[in-house]
């Protein structure tokens, strides 16, 4: 039992609805909702709140369904000791799987309470009643009933504007010691010698730890630990593999695996050599950083019985627990992971920080907190893999695509990431899609839409380049080759929003279009840019977005605006630079991200279509934006674009 009062009603069932994620360690039946004798309601989910607003939508939905105050609803998220198993908060699916299931649970509770009232009116029944609900895929009608229960204004907003919200970086236990790490100066460097004699003289020094591949100092305060680290003398053997971005992008292909075919329709070779017009392009997107505002932090405490509790900020408490169990060599059942408020996560927040805190805590016998500084965050965090994309496409006299041959080389040995968004929606009868992976010189990880935004950059820039070469309007060229009705609808809608037909490009002013698909949703964007005095300014972005039924329009628009802003950074400035195995731009001075004066006017139109089940809103908005901006810059300058980021290329050209 989790609720503190006496539980009178408990709803159990699968933690997700639909077939999605009904695999592996996910229980067939778990406690989803409890009602206590004092009327308070507890709901449980392994999902993480990292800014997308699920705590808000779940709380409001339950309160509204049961017709009680939001203050009486307690949504317990992401604590392995209290919530059902979850694989992690990814794929923009929380609302349609967990939200729908909690809605079903709340309705079951409501019906039971109504029946009880009818039957004896006293309500003094003290036995716990358990009701089991199904995990069937919700019908469109169920989603329709769910929608009005979701509210817009965030119930957790007050805690965020007053400083009450406790992020992992803020979390503290009484008597915690602090860890500070000694890191290799370059990727792969091996420690040859270490001398901590002077460090041990620093007031507050507790211990130098060398264990499980981690080297760090534990101190009474963060300041003491940091200061002690500055007195530790080390000598390193640097591998001499001169890992640097100078070898990119060509190394991606030269060292890449054999491409894996994801689709091979028709005869691509015949189509490409059919005498139709062949247009080829090669595109490159560099490594980019998540650079979320809260750097990695975790606190770890061991119990006398060998149990471990970790407070951290990650997208999946159970995956974190499995990682810790494997790396520490202990039973997962002995580990409790509690996710605090998460100060941004667009892919992975470091798992290693929890592990580092656990090792330092185990060795020192103290609870230990580790909080990275910004330079550590930039130099050790996983980054979105760089990719090289090769496209050959052939068009006939009437402007119809006959063949589309796409090969992408994504850095990193995670084929799943590079495949996202690689497929083409265009009608070419001969279509081949191949994706290869390539050794990654930097630690690589997830990023909003995984490889989706990268693949869309290559494809949508190539489509627009073709249209320009053929002298066909880019909107018409797309519509002539795209029969999928939902793609067509977002394109037609964004053309209206942006007044596409009457746009006036000129020297220095350009418009770019791009269309995409991610996490089940369709999105089209038009960017208007001005290029003057060697500077690109994005003035306006129109977005039409089809995510089927919409639960919370304002929350969706917030996510889409954020995706546009984030993707705009990758289009214009962002690139992780590295040389000799060292990341070079490890601060916000060297790694430029969008600021408030950079932000364009953003118009978002949601195509709310109740005949389609709800799909993702957190990621799809980022997939077309870099291409839309690149296409607009090409339109403004008359020069084709084939790589990101754009601003350094314009600066180099104009200086």
């Amino acid at each position, binding site marked *: 039992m989790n609720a503190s009062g006496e539980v009178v009603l408990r709803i159990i069932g699968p933690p997700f609805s639909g077939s999605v994620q009904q695999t592996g360690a996910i229980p067939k039946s778990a406690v989803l909702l409890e009602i206590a004798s004092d009327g308070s309601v507890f709901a449980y989910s392994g999902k993480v709140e990292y800014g997308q607003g699920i705590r808000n939508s779940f709380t409001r939905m339950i309160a509204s369904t049961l017709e009680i105050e939001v203050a009486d609803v307690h949504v317990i998220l992401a604590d392995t000791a209290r919530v059902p198993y979850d694989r992690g908060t990814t794929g923009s699916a929380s609302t349609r799987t967990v939200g729908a299931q909690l809605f079903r649970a709340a309705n079951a509770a409501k019906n039971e309470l109504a029946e009880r009232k009818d039957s004896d009116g006293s309500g003094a029944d003290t036995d716990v009643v358990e009701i089991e609900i199904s995990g069937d895929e919700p019908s469109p009608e169920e989603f329709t009933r769910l929608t009005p229960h979701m509210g817009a204004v965030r119930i957790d907003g007050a805690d965020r504007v007053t400083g009450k919200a406790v992020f992992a970086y803020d979390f503290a236990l009484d008597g915690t010691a602090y860890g500070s790490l000694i890191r290799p100066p370059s990727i792969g460097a091996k420690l040859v010698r270490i001398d901590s004699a002077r460090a041990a003289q620093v007031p507050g020094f507790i211990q130098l730890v060398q264990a499980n591949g981690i080297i760090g100092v534990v101190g009474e305060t963060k300041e003491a630990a940091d200061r002690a680290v500055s007195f530790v003398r080390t000598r390193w053997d640097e591998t001499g593999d001169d890992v640097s971005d100078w070898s990119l992008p060509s190394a991606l292909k030269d060292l890449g695996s054999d491409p894996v075919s994801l689709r091979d329709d028709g005869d691509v070779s015949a189509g490409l050599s059919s005498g139709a017009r062949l247009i080829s392009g090669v595109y490159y997107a560099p490594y980019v950083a998540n650079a979320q505002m809260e750097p990695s932090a975790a606190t770890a405490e061991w119990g006398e019985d060998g149990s471990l509790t970790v407070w951290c900020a990650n997208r999946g408490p159970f995956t974190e627990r499995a990682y810790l169990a494997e790396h520490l060599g202990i039973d997962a059942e002995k580990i409790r992971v509690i996710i605090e408020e998460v100060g941004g996560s667009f892919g992975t927040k470091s798992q290693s920080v929890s592990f580092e805190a656990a090792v330092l805590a185990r060795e020192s016998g103290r609870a230990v907190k580790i909080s990275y500084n910004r330079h550590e965050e930039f130099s050790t965090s996983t980054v979105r893999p760089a990719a090289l994309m090769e496209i050959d496409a052939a068009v006939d006299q009437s402007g119809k695509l006959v063949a589309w041959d796409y090969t992408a080389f994504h850095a990193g040995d995670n084929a799943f990431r590079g495949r996202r968004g690689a497929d083409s929606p265009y009608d070419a009868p001969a279509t081949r899609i191949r994706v290869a992976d390539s050794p990654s010189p930097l630690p690589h990880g997830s990023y909003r839409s995984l490889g989706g935004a990268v693949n869309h950059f290559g494809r949508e820039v190539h489509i627009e380049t073709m249209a320009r070469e053929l002298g066909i309007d880019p909107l018409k060229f797309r519509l002539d080759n795209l029969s999928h009705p939902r793609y067509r609808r977002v394109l037609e809608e964004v053309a209206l929003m942006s007044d596409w037909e009457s746009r006036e490009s000129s020297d220095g002013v350009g418009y770019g279009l791009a269309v995409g698909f991610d996490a089940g949703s369709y999105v089209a964007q038009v960017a208007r840019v001005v290029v003057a005095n060697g500077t690109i300014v994005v003035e306006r972005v129109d977005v039409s977005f089809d995510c089927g039924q919409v639960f919370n329009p304002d929350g969706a628009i917030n996510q889409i605006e954020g995706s546009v802003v984030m993707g705009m950074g990758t289009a214009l400035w962002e690139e992780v630079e590295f040389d000799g195995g060292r990341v070079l731009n490890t601060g*916000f001075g060297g790694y430029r991200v969008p600021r408030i004066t950079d932000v364009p006017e953003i118009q978002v139109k949601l195509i709310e279509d109740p005949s389609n089940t709800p799909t993702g809103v957190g990621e799809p908005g980022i997939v077309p934006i870099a291409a839309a901006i690149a296409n607009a810059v090409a339109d403004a300058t008359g020069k084709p674009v084939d790589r990101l980021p754009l601003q350094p290329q314009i600066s180099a050209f104009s200086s």
Partner: protein
Amino acid sequence: MEISINNLTHNFEVNPERLLLDVLRQEAGLTGAKYGCGEGNCGACTVLVDGEATRSCITPVGSMVGRNVTTVEGLTAGGELSSVQQAFVDESAFQCGYCTPGFVISTTALLLKNSSPSTGDIKSALNGHICRCGAYVRIVKAVQKAAGNPDHGTSL
């Protein structure tokens, strides 16, 4: 050394070189001001010093003697959100909320000086802040909304 924080006098026995942000978070237990970069580039650590928006991550605590420091916790007089805080909530001007205290403080400082800022004034006052979640469109709306309401939560 004696420093006034949120109208309370604190007595710290710390090295005056220590950074105000560390002292606020670790000695005073006020974690509303956030660490984002530690070098004055992101605004997450912003506090008011005698009504001026100040980056606490690059400010030695020793320079605060005799000054009034206000953190985001201190804007909430008697449990009521200030107009700036309320406007950020009403406009959903955040996603994760990690950057929010910094933006709220700088907005408060702006409105103390300029009660009807133009959009350009708002953007230039907040350009030292990073919101990686990209809530900027809403942040501008929240500031405009708060500007319509004179109670900025501090009498400084």
